[in-house]
């Protein structure tokens, strides 16, 4: 499915408006003073957590409380696609910006700016909120879908930096992995959980008898309450159901004696009271989850979805309406049962609904939603088609969506869409932290090449480019891959040429060929379309900065590094590996200019992005650079720690080139610094336990024998030994003994001279 892509302006994946629409408040709900008060009590708290299973009225409670206070509200409903800090905070900043235009502007600008970590845009957002001056409530709904560590950490960060006028409310089905413990301990967390959200018997009575006007005795109410355990959704369903049956009391009695899972029972019986046509409609709409009347009409071949949905919503029958955009949502609990029921009645119906929805949404550019429906339809071909059609936008703006899709598709399927594989591999490379997935994708491309013998030149070039980019284990291979990427692109995939040259240049740098790296980089800059190839352009600039810095041309290095950052600022990539490269380049420049504090900040950020489950040369390189800067700042322990990690990673890679040289240099620098620190007196004297070991180090005893003599495990002996080396500023047993002797630390009687 190779397309020649002629994209002058990168199209952006639109934000899903539905996610920014708060649910509409309903009239006629039971007033839950107790619950509102619990939320009010959180006014002093930094974070309010509303946690409980579906159907506990979490969203309703928060919504009602918000409209009660009449505070400005920024509401975002999250989903699995928001597991990327850039995307998540783009939604939040947009929501805040809609409270008053301009509040989120600086944050949104920063979010397009990739070199800085997520803290920068979050800070800007907090500033914007502080500027607003009045109370502003931010609600994040469905937080159980957020599992990414960086996202959760960014929420923790926001909680810690929230202005006094703002409140952050997190609604979730499960307790999110935020720093809840410390917040609880310091009283900075307000929680509203299932126990509080459940209806009390009094509230159940209020609902069933006062509001729903059901003719039920105290015993019946008690039965209902006991059987549902106060589960709000169940009780509300019961109230609707019982109004529609002839013999409410009899129905309650049957219910009380039944053992069926409550939610299913009640959904089922309520459902049975509806007209046939309404039932048909409801079952099918449930498969859609979130929809507009237009989508419904198109998918279900109807023209009356608008009135159906409105009527259902009015009667509180399983459907709620979002505040704007004309979106409706089927209650998730009901949707579960409905889809089971629909499948039972008409096995192929759900898949057909998802299929149609996928096509309708894809045609309107709602790519992420379309792919979700395609995936649910089990229509892997359709999914792959949609992804292939939009893989360029997905690659650019979709965060990690492409990687998720690649994972969802089995190898057999994926191998037929080499362009998608290539794009996904690029995303994996660009995001960092997906080395294993990246390798799987590259292997798939190899297989595609072998099986089909015709993958598009673009996919081919990209595959080689990714290989070159990784520089993972072997700089020489990376150089070869880079050269092949360039050749293929030159021949028939111009779209990939800048990126290929960038990767080639980087590989050359790591393999120690500075002149060639310089030349390749400049060739890229001369490309007529360079301005539209932001990622490749930025990457080239980062590499050129490094080459210049290595040659001592700091002015030129600075220009290139700053340009890299500037380019990424306009490109809308979020949390990317290319951004980390720009940071690394800037870090190197700062270090060259003697600004070690700035250098450390930039390099530390880059190092974090490069951390992965698998050892990599670029990570080892960054650790070494970081170690050097820390050493220069006198943070010797930290420096040593980074250097050691670098050495371990190198050992794993069995690498022997220029990064190895760098690491060795840095190790020497640290050693010298430590010696200087401890020359003359031993600033940090060995403990008695260490002295005991030191004495025996002066003998011929092995580590194990020393352990036996002192009743210590070999590991403990080694640990003491390491500590002794550090304190004495040495690296070997003989040096330690010599130095200890010189300092008069050895017990003379034992010294075997």
């Amino acid at each position, binding site marked *: 499915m190779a397309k020649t892509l002629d994209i002058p302006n990168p199209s952006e994946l639109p934000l899903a408006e539905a996610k920014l629409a708060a649910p509409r408040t309903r009239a006629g709900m039971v007033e839950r003073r107790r619950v509102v008060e619990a939320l009010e009590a959180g006014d002093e708290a930094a974070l309010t957590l509303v946690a409980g*299973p*579906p*159907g506990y009225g979490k969203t309703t409670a928060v919504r009602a409380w918000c409209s009660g206070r009449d505070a400005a509200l920024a509401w975002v409903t999250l989903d699995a696609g928001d597991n990327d800090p850039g995307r998540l905070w783009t939604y939040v900043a947009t929501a805040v910006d809609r409270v008053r235009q301009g509040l989120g502007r600086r944050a949104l600008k920063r979010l397009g700016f990739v070199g800085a970590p997520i803290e920068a845009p979050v800070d800007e957002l907090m500033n914007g909120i502080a500027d607003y001056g009045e109370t502003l409530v931010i609600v994040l709904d469905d937080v159980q879908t957020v599992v990414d560590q960086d996202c959760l950490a960014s929420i923790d960060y926001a909680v810690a930096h929230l202005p006094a006028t703002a409140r952050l409310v997190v609604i979730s*089905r*499960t307790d999110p992995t935020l720093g809840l413990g410390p917040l609880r301990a310091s009283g900075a967390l307000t929680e509203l959980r299932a126990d509080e959200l459940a209806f009390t018997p009094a509230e159940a009575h209020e609902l069933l008898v006062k509001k729903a006007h059901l003719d039920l005795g105290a015993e019946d109410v008690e039965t209902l309450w006991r059987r549902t355990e106060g*589960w709000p*959704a169940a009780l509300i369903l019961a109230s609707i159901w019982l109004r529609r049956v002839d013999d409410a009391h009899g129905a309650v009695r049957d219910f009380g004696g039944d*053992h*069926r*899972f*409550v*939610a*299913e029972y009640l959904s*089922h019986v309520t459902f049975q009271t509806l007209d046939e046509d309404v039932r048909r409609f409801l079952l099918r709409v449930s498969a859609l989850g979130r929809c507009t009347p237009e989508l419904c009409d198109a998918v279900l071949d109807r023209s009356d979805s608008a009135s159906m949905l409105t009527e259902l919503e009015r009667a509180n029958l399983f459907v709620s309406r979002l505040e704007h955009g004309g979106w409706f949502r089927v209650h*998730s*609990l009901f949707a*579960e*049962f409905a*889809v*089971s*029921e629909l*499948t*039972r009645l008409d096995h192929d119906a759900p898949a057909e609904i998802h299929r149609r929805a996928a096509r309708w949404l894809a045609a309107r550019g709602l790519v992420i939603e379309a792919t979700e429906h395609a995936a649910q339809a089990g229509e892997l071909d359709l999914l792959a088609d949609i992804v292939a059609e939009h893989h360029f936008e997905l690659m650019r703006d979709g965060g990690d969506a492409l990687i998720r899709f690649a994972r969802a598709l089995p190898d057999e399927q994926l191998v037929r869409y080499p362009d998608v594989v290539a794009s996904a591999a690029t995303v994996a490379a660009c995001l960092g932290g997906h080395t294993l997935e990246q390798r799987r994708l590259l292997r798939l491309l190899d297989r595609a090449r072998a099986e089909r013998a015709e993958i598009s030149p673009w996919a081919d070039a990209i595959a080689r480019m990714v290989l070159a980019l990784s520089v993972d284990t072997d700089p020489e291979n990376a150089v070869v891959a880079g050269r092949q990427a360039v050749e293929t692109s030159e021949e028939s995939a111009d779209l990939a040429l800048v990126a290929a040259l960038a990767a080639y240049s980087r590989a050359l740098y790591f393999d120690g060929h500075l002149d060639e790296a310089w030349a390749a980089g400049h060739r890229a800059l001369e490309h007529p379309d360079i301005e539209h190839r932001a990622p490749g352009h930025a990457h080239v600039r980062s590499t050129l900065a490094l080459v210049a810095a290595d040659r001592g041309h700091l002015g030129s290095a600075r220009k290139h590094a700053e340009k890299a950052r500037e380019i990424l600022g306009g490109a809308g990539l979020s949390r990317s590996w290319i951004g980390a490269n720009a940071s690394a380049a800037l870090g190197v420049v700062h270090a060259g200019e003697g600004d070690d504090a700035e250098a450390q900040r930039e390099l530390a950020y880059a190092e974090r992005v490069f951390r992965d489950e698998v050892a990599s040369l670029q990570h080892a390189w960054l650790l070494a650079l970081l170690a050097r800067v820390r050493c220069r700042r006198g943070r010797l322990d930290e420096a040593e720690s980074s250097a050691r990690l670098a050495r371990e990673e190198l050992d794993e890679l069995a690498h022997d080139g220029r990064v190895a040289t760098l690491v060795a240099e840095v190790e020497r620098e640290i050693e010298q610094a430590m010696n200087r620190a401890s020359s003359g007196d031993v600033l940090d004297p060995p403990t008695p336990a260490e002295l005991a070991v030191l004495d025996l180090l002066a003998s011929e005893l092995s580590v194990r024998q020393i352990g036996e003599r002192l009743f210590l495990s070999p590991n403990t002996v080694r640990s003491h030994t390491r500590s002794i080396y550090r304190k004495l500023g040495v690296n070997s047993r003989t040096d330690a003994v010599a130095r200890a002797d010189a300092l008069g630390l050895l017990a003379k009687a034992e010294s075997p001279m």
Partner: protein
Amino acid sequence: MVREYSLVVDGELSDELGNSFAGMTLTRSEGTTMLVGQVRDQAELHGLLQRISNLGLTLLSASTRDEGGGQGPLSAH
């Protein structure tokens, strides 16, 4: 590593709902339901647990028996 898991939830589930837990057999008794089946790996297990959570079911227990035939109860209350 494939293990046979038994998950017990509060409430008796219908067969239809049980079908949505693909590959698990359903046994109802005395107000609870037991779902038993071969679970390929932990990712699949957590998918099942998430489905239980999404349905608002209360998990009463989860236990496993691996190839070796040993029994290891992991009660979750």
